[in-house]
């Protein structure tokens, strides 16, 4: 909503500077989003009166004058001859510039200076210097100063004298959707009036009274009173449609509206002034019933078509509200008029509509047709049903003044069932209870009255039962323009606004302590994050919305958006991996090829049409395993699946989780070239880990092996076991036995461990794999593996024979269990 300073001043007085006004409006809840200063014509030029004229002591052709400028007197040296004391002339004040003329390199700025040793504080101007044609403004063409009308007020800005727009300030206001009344100049002025205590001025709009026996020149029939409970119509005959007067054109253009013609401009002007949308029809184009043009407000029939003012043919629905005559639609109610009854240069008779339409209906139609106008914007937020007739009267008066013509008949105000004004009860003590300050009753009531609310009744004070002095709840009558005031809390907000939120003291935090089951989960998530950061991984936060193709490669049960913005963001991520792959691609495309990331976030899948959300943690590694270094044989090593597995194992250990079982997928999948599923406790699937299919990787411009892992974080946290207990440090020495053996390729590390476990060897403290080798001296299809077995007793040093006996059982079990052939 745009308003100008001068327009507001038409309706209310205030002594604030333009910036102060912006500040006050903002703190009142009308945020000023922009301030634009408009330089007027003839800035710094005022009407001055010559008080005395004397000859310049040092120059024959100059005179020294004393002039009044409206604020005081000043001395001016002047070379013109055509004036005398008492004349009114244009004076340009020091610091201001003469109107620029074509060819001027820079503006000519008037300064205080001496002319032949006499100071001059400004300059009296000729018509030529002002760049105006004196005859065009009804003045005589003179050699010398431009002589102004004798009744011109001294000090009046010259632009005002000429009837042109002076400088102004345009405010761009953010009006919240609950306050449709603020989409009008008067609405804003009303707030200023309430804040300043100055009265609000609403133009009287007197119309010549219709003859007592005059018949209405138009009939109105409301066929859908639920959608249009009030419709007013006035007829003005014999208008001359033409350009608007300068003041009207200037008012509209300053707030960004294009001038069309005097009649249409008046309807727009009154809409801006009062917030009430109006529409003017060419009356002669309406069908007549019994010789009387008739307006019918009705629902459209389904698939009825209608051509709006913009020339677009629109197909209507049965809930579309249509303003029609006896035969055809003439306006899309509350949104846009019809081409068939548009005001044109030839229009003689005007039908002026000012009505109230139901907001939800207007909103639905406007949305369905994709057609938003200044009118629909106001109607869908809620217009003021009470102002409809007054706005029509104001518009009619302005049309008569700008386009001529005469009223025909009285106003038709179809408003069969005016709603009783809404009343809201306020218990004054509730104001203090909600705001935390005690306000005197007088202040509360004063604020509400300043906003146009009126006390309806006071509940009679009970004779007994309540303590004397108990306050009475007051029922307030809500003015029709305040559609947002519906209950007690709304009135309390009004009091808070006018009192000033900044004056409400802050209270130090107090009261109940909070609790929520998620509180501890937040800590666990942060714990996992911090742990993975400690592992050297950088945390990523990916998009929740990802592309369908990659998402489906991970999980077929994706949830699609019904209204996506683009095809690369059309489903909810069923896994964190697609996002991480995207992130890797982004990094690689910027030549950042060594990336080790994790992400913790929610994923979404559906089962049986029901959405499910779950927390996941995922890891993505690619490129060099370790930061670059200038020496060492391992420096070029790239990340492999065991880097990721090591991180997963560390995390599990940190969380106190045991019993992860890893199973290699025997076949590659479209997503994984080689991967394993991870189960917990033998049953529940914890996640998966592996290397991304190089085919897929190349499609994402990834060259090095991409190692990915994703775990079910809900499960991980559910199994989290933070309890720890102390185990005494070993007091006696251990014995170590190394074993190198050849086994079939199919024998897994898990199988070896199972065989060892089956041996039930006494005092076996640990089994550690330290080498896996294939190649020279190892037959094809087999591999050499080397383990270190550590034996230790907690209460004594083991004897060699004891170790030997236990180790012998282990070797037997390995032979029997995994077919191990020992190497010497």
């Amino acid at each position, binding site marked *: 909503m745009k308003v100008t300073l001068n327009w507001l001043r038409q309706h209310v007085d205030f002594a604030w500077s333009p910036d102060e006004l912006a500040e006050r409006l903002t703190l009142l809840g009308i945020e000023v989003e922009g301030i634009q200063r408009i330089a007027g014509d003839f800035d710094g030029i005022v009407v001055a009166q010559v008080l005395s004229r004397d000859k310049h002591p040092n120059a024959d052709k100059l005179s020294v004058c004393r002039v009044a400028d409206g604020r005081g007197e000043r001395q001016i040296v002047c070379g013109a001859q055509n004036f005398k004391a008492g004349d009114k002339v244009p004076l340009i004040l020091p610091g201001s510039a003469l109107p620029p003329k074509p060819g001027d390199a820079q503006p000519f700025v008037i300064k205080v200076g001496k002319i032949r040793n006499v100071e001059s504080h400004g300059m009296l101007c000729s018509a030529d210097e002002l760049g105006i044609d004196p005859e065009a403004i009804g003045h005589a063409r003179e050699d010398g100063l431009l002589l102004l009308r004798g009744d011109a007020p001294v000090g009046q800005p010259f632009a005002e004298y000429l009837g042109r727009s002076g400088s102004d300030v345009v405010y761009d206001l953010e009006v919240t959707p609950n306050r449709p009344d603020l989409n009008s100049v008067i609405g804003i002025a009303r707030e200023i009036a309430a804040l300043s205590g100055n009265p609000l001025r609403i133009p009287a709009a007197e119309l010549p009274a219709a003859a007592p026996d005059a018949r209405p020149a138009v009939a109105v029939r409301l066929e859908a009173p639920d959608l249009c409970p009030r419709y007013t119509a006035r007829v003005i005959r014999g208008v001359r449609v033409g350009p608007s007067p300068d003041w009207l054109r200037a008012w509209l253009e300053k707030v960004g509206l294009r001038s069309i013609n005097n009649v249409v401009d008046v309807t727009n002007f009154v809409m801006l002034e009062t917030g009430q949308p109006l529409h003017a029809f060419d009356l002669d184009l309406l069908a007549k019933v019994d010789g009387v043009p008739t307006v019918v407000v009705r629902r459209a029939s389904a698939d009825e078509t209608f051509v709006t003012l913009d020339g677009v043919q629109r197909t209507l629905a049965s809930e579309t509200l249509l303003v029609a005559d006896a035969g055809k639609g003439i306006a899309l109610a509350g949104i846009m008029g019809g081409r068939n009854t548009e005001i044109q240069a030839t229009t003689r008779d005007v039908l002026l509509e000012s009505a109230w339409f139901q907001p939800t209906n207007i909103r639905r139609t406007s949305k369905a047709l994709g057609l938003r106008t200044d009118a629909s914007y106001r109607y869908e937020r809620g217009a003021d049903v009470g102002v409809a007739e007054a706005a029509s009267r104001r518009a009619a008066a302005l049309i008569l003044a700008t386009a001529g013509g005469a009223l025909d008949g009285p106003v038709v105000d179809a408003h069969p069932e005016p709603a009783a004004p809404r009343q809201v009860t306020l218990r004054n003590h509730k104001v203090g209870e909600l705001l935390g300050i005690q306000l005197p009753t007088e202040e509360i009531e004063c604020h509400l009255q300043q906003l146009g609310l009126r006390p309806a009744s006071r509940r009679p004070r009970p004779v007994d039962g309540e303590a004397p002095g108990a306050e009475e709840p007051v029922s307030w009558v809500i003015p029709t323009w305040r559609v947002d005031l519906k209950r007690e809390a709304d009135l309390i907000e009004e009091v808070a606004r006018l009192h000033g939120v900044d004056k409400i003291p802050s209270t130090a935090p107090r009261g109940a302590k909070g609790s929520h089951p998620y509180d501890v989960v937040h800590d666990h998530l942060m714990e996992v994050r911090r742990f993975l950061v400690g592992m050297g991984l950088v945390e990523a936060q990916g998009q*929740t919305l990802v592309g369908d193709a990659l998402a489906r490669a991970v999980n077929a049960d994706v949830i699609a958006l019904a209204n996506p913005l683009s095809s690369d963001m059309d489903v909810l991520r069923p896994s964190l991996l697609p996002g991480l792959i995207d992130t890797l691609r982004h990094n690689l495309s910027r030549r950042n090829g060594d990336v080790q990331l994790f992400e913790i976030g929610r994923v979404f899948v559906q089962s049986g049409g029901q959405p499910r959300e779950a927390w996941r943690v995922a890891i993505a590694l690619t490129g060099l395993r370790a930061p670059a270094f200038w020496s060492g044989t391992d420096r070029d090593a790239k990340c492999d699946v065991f880097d990721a597995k090591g991180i997963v194992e560390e995390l599990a250990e940190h969380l106190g989780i045991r019993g992860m079982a890893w199973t290699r997928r025997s076949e590659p999948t479209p997503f994984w070239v080689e991967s394993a599923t991870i189960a917990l406790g033998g049953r529940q699937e914890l996640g998966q880990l592996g290397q991304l299919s190089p085919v897929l990787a190349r499609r994402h411009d990834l060259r090095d092996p991409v190692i990915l892992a994703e775990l079910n974080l809900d499960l991980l946290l559910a199994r989290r076991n933070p309890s720890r207990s102390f185990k005494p440090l070993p007091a006696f020495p251990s014995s170590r036995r190394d074993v190198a053996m050849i086994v079939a390729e199919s024998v897994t590390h898990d199988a070896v461990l199972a065989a060892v476990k089956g041996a039930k060897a006494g005092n076996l403290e640990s089994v550690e794999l330290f080498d896996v080798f294939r190649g020279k001296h190892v037959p094809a299809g087999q591999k050499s593996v080397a383990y270190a077995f550590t034996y230790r007793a907690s209460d004594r040093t083991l004897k060699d024979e004891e170790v030997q006996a236990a180790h012998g059982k282990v070797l037997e079990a390995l032979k029997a269990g995994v077919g191990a052939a020992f190497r010497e």
Partner: protein
Amino acid sequence: MSLLAQVDSVKAEALVALGDAADLPALEQAKGSFLGAEGRFTALLKQLGGLPREDRPAAGKSINAAKAEIEAALAARRADLELRASVPRDPADFTLPGRRRPSGRLHPLTQVTDDIVRAFRRLGFAVADGPEIEDERHCFDALNTPADHPARDAQDTFFLDLPSRPLLRTHTSSVQIRVMEKQAPPIRIVVPGRVFRRDNADATHNPTFHQIEGLYIDRGVTLGDLKGTVEAVFRELLGDDVKLRFRPHYFSYTEPSLEIDFTNSLVRKLGKEWLEIAGCGMVHPKVFENVGYDPEVWSGWAFGFGIERIAMLRYGITDIRLFYENDTRFLAQF
């Protein structure tokens, strides 16, 4: 020459010889020539027996002292030569880059979220959470934003292609309803989380972003309490020099509703007087009625803001998309 004089002179020679030994073999040789079985100092010891009985204790004492002195010098010299012998042949260039270990980082949004959560927790708030896939009731209707309400326009919503037509929550306020449905008042929670709006990505928009909000419901909660907590949280977050301004505004689920502007040296450096940072208000009585709380008994406030915005301000980041691109050179800066 008396025996004692000889001891002094041999000791002095021994100390010189030990000091002159250039390496460990030379040192061992020097040791042998003084302290070995045939060594010169050993020979002096042997003369001790030839002294008169009354002189022996004094002489023995000084010989032992001299021997201890030589042995100490020997040990010191040996330690010194051993150390020198183990200096690496190729000297290290300490200006070479060190062998770096990968160091991880928390995402800047995580860091900022956790700082905010910590500020709220210090005031007794518990962290709460709710689903990101929501229904219209929790996201709009129960929050007093009925269908066809113009306020819904401002939050263009993603809907899901599922039979129940769920949506992605457009704000964390849906969690208010979830929590109030489950828990009896009083309530004191802080809710960080992801929210979604159907905006094309640009420097200030991403379809996914994060909000955080606090909710406090109790008996006798006032607007003054709201202001007090907002000030405490933002002072902790933005520093003690922060100034706040509360402006009346409109949200359908609070009444009165306020927007919060802040200013500090950073804002002034940006050439602005105030920057909008958060919205808040007293919980609308209709919202209480919608979850079955009696608005005559309970009152409360809600206060929420965008996490990206705080992070962008704190670090001077000008493009929101950087948060979601996860360029590790970006992430490593925080």
